[in-house]
């Protein structure tokens, strides 16, 4: 039964892989700088590594927002998010998995009468604004810096092409890692409080926790999405959505990856806190929104005119609509799952005892910790 309930999360993971891999390798593959097969292998590897090793930070924030503690509830929340994503994509609105899952969790909270942690919600919503803004800031300065370097170094166009390819591959690997770390929460986060997997001891020295096993499964679903469907999306993104020069593409993907990483890395957050510096909340962000921020940063750096405000309006509209639709849909579906299919969508005894339970993965390098 667990595998059936996980199906909605796996579907969400598949759609994340199919759509969001294009935000990392879209330009590189679309412009044939990197072959699709190579891009897909790198994405797969690093998404899984990011998910398993650093996926817990953003997941904790989602769990704090609403600990969906019964498998049927988790199934419905993930299914609502997946339907929202598919529907909005059909309407050609830029959609974020993060926003739909947050909306769906709030829908679950409202349906089950669980309290919504408003400080977590404020953290999440503010990050959705700060994330793209930070991406724009990064890409603005990085683009200026890289142009200055290129002009001064006077590298031959053909050599630059080779360095670009390697840069795109490296930055793509970092992007895939960050995507796995940041977005696995969207795919598998709602299953964490209710997941039934037992910890596995490896060679008597390492622990592969239940949550990590869950994230591995989610990572594999994302990878299947990358291999089966992202090819088409990458060509669309690379050729139509944002036709950038390879340098600009490199900067945009790096900025996007940095933002996803900053909002996902527990180790970085701990390091900043230990040094008395302000840290960013660990929140699942939309890689598409981060890319849009990055592209706007490039446009500003080049003093480009003509930002299309109609498209910007569409993005803002989708920004607001996605969580609301996700929430309403989840509320309705929960009613059906509970009353028509007679499934338990909430475990009240669990939620009383574990309302602020954190995921069972210790901070970074948790894969290497002793049991």
């Amino acid at each position, binding site marked *: 039964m667990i595998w059936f309930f996980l199906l909605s999360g796996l579907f969400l993971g598949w759609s994340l892989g199919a759509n969001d891999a294009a935000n990392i390798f879209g330009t590189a593959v679309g412009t*044939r700088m990197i072959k699709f097969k190579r891009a897909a292998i790198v994405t797969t590897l690093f998404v899984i590594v990011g998910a398993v090793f650093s996926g817990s930070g953003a997941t904790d924030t989602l769990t704090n927002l609403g600990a969906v503690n019964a498998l049927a509830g988790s199934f419905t929340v993930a299914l609502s998010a997946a339907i929202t994503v598919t529907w909005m994509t059909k309407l050609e609105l830029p959609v974020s998995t993060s926003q739909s899952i947050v909306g769906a969790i709030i829908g679950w909270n409202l349906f089950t009468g669980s309290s919504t942690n408003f400080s977590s919600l404020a953290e999440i919503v503010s990050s959705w604004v700060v994330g793209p803004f930070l991406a724009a800031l990064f890409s603005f300065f990085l683009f200026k810096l890289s142009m200055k370097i290129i002009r001064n170094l*006077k590298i031959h*166009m053909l050599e630059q092409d*080779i360095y670009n390819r390697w840069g795109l591959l490296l930055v793509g690997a970092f992007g895939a890692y960050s995507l796995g770390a940041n977005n696995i929460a969207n795919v598998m986060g709602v299953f964490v409080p209710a997941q039934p997997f037992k910890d596995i001891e490896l060679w008597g020295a390492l622990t592969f926790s239940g949550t990590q096993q869950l994230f591995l499964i989610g990572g594999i679903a994302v990878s299947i999405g990358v291999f089966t469907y992202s090819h088409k999306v990458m060509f669309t993104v690379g050729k139509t959505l944002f036709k950038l020069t390879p340098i600009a593409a490199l900067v945009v993907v790096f900025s996007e990856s940095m933002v996803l990483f900053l909002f996902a890395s527990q180790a970085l957050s701990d390091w900043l806190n230990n040094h008395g510096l302000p840290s960013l909340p660990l929140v699942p962000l939309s890689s598409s929104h981060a890319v849009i921020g990055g592209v706007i940063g490039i446009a500003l750096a080049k003093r480009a005119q003509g930002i299309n405000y109609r498209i910007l309006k569409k993005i803002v509209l989708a920004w607001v609509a996605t969580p609301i639709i996700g929430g309403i849909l989840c509320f309705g579906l929960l009613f059906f799952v509970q009353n028509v299919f007679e499934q338990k969508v909430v475990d009240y005894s669990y939620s009383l005892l574990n309302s602020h339970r954190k995921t069972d993965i210790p901070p970074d390098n948790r894969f290497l910790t002793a049991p």
Partner: protein
Amino acid sequence: MPFLLKKIKELESEIDAYLDMVIKGGLLFKQSIKYFMSGEIEEFELRLDELDKIESDADILRRTIESKLYEQTLIPDSRGDVLGLLESTDKALNVTTETLHQFAVEIPHILPEVKHLYIELTDLSISALESMVAAVRSYFEDLNQVRDYINKVLFYESESDKIAEKIKRIVFRTDIELSKKIHMRYFALHIENIADEAEDVCDRLAIAAIKRHV
């Protein structure tokens, strides 16, 4: 990566060698016209043979470069521009060779009072060609320089127009047969065409450079 870089360096050298051929072709043209004007036809013919060889070698090298750019899927976003540039540069070299052939075949009668103007016109047209090659080289390595070289080409082209017009004015005010006048105008026009071709390459180059900046 080192293997790939080695291959790229080879291709860079081939592009440089190709552009060197265009420069050498221009210099040979300049030299040949001087010999023609001074009546040293044997020297002129020797230079023409040499130019023919360079033109055919340049054609082969250009095709090699173009197929390597495609086979190794290099510079996918600028490949079309680079191929266009190499082809239009080749056209400029072709016009240079053709013009010299026309001198050899038609042996125009040039009035002694305009011979120095023909040499001056040749110098200006070949200067335009040389600056065009420098602009193309800069496109590959230093985009900031492209604009300076394009301005030089435009200057030489407009100066060559002026000299060509001066030749025509002098020729058509002289009391000789109309056929000879038309013949001399025709050759002034041909030499001037070399600068025009260089200008066409630069028009293409200006757009390609903007595209690389964006």
